[in-house]
């Protein structure tokens, strides 16, 4: 049983009080540039997900609490939660530093884009 803590209202409980909402940080390509969305981009957005062994980033909802969505960083091997953070936020820097593979690539790209903006 996973023990989840909502970063919005502070409610802590087992996973049945929450709702898992799949992979975090999936961005809809059409919201950036609706006129130029390739089939590949749209396919990746709809169907392609990261499935890591180890640190993963997910969306959760405080289903039986405040009702808000939030993000969680969880290890898929040990099931340990590394962080809970807001739905519009990136994970804490020390957790991003632990990300590997596709997630490391994703955050590097995202942080670079935010620096440029």
């Amino acid at each position, binding site marked *: 049983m996973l023990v989840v803590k909502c970063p919005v*209202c*502070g409610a802590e*409980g*087992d996973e049945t*009080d929450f709702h898992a909402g799949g992979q975090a940080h999936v961005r809809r390509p059409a919201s950036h540039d609706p006129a130029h969305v390739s089939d590949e981009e749209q396919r990746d957005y709809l169907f392609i997900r990261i499935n890591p062994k180890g640190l993963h980033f997910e969306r959760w909802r405080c289903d*039986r*609490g*405040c*009702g808000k969505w939030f993000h969680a960083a969880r290890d898929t091997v040990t099931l340990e939660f590394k962080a809970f953070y807001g739905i519009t936020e990136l994970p804490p820097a020390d957790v991003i530093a632990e990300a590997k593979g596709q997630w490391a690539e994703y955050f590097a790209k995202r942080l670079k884009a935010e620096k440029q903006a």
Partner: protein
Amino acid sequence: MSELSHESPLAGVTPPPGLSVSLREITDRGMIDLRGHGSDQAFLSAVKGALGLDLPLRPRTSAGSDDLRVLWLSMDQWLILCPRTKAAEILAALRSALTGVHSLAVDVSDMRAVIRIEGGGCREVLMKGTSLDLLDAEYRPGCCRRMRFAEIAALLSVVEDNVFDVYVFRSYARYAWDFVCATAREPARVRLFGAQDAPA
């Protein structure tokens, strides 16, 4: 012309004999769903003007008196409890105070059924249906929270140390009632937690 009438979802249902807690439905409760931003000063002061009390902003708390109580449901949602006969009047006052403020107020008095569970050991009975630790100091009078109870969505309000109100959506009322009746039978007491006093 047809006329609206209030019919309780638990009309005619009485608790079976031999329960370890006392059980009844509260039917005369008016409920108003209020939404707005808890960080919006205009919203907060308009509500205060209409209700005469501050909205509770701390998660899982409530404010007010027996006649008019506001339960915190979320950072942007509250449930106002009042006598059923007063709901229309309070709703009108709220709506006029909130004119021009981004908000929503709706009479939802018929949306939920309220089951009152009373007596020593009622925390133990409720804990058969939820993963919450109701012996935690957080669950003292005035505390309220939504929870998963007997696999359905419910709202729990601690009225007094051994008095709890459980709000369930109307269509689940009979199921929730039957669940409590089954789990509250005297022979079904588990006494895992000793005397089951309210948390200190």
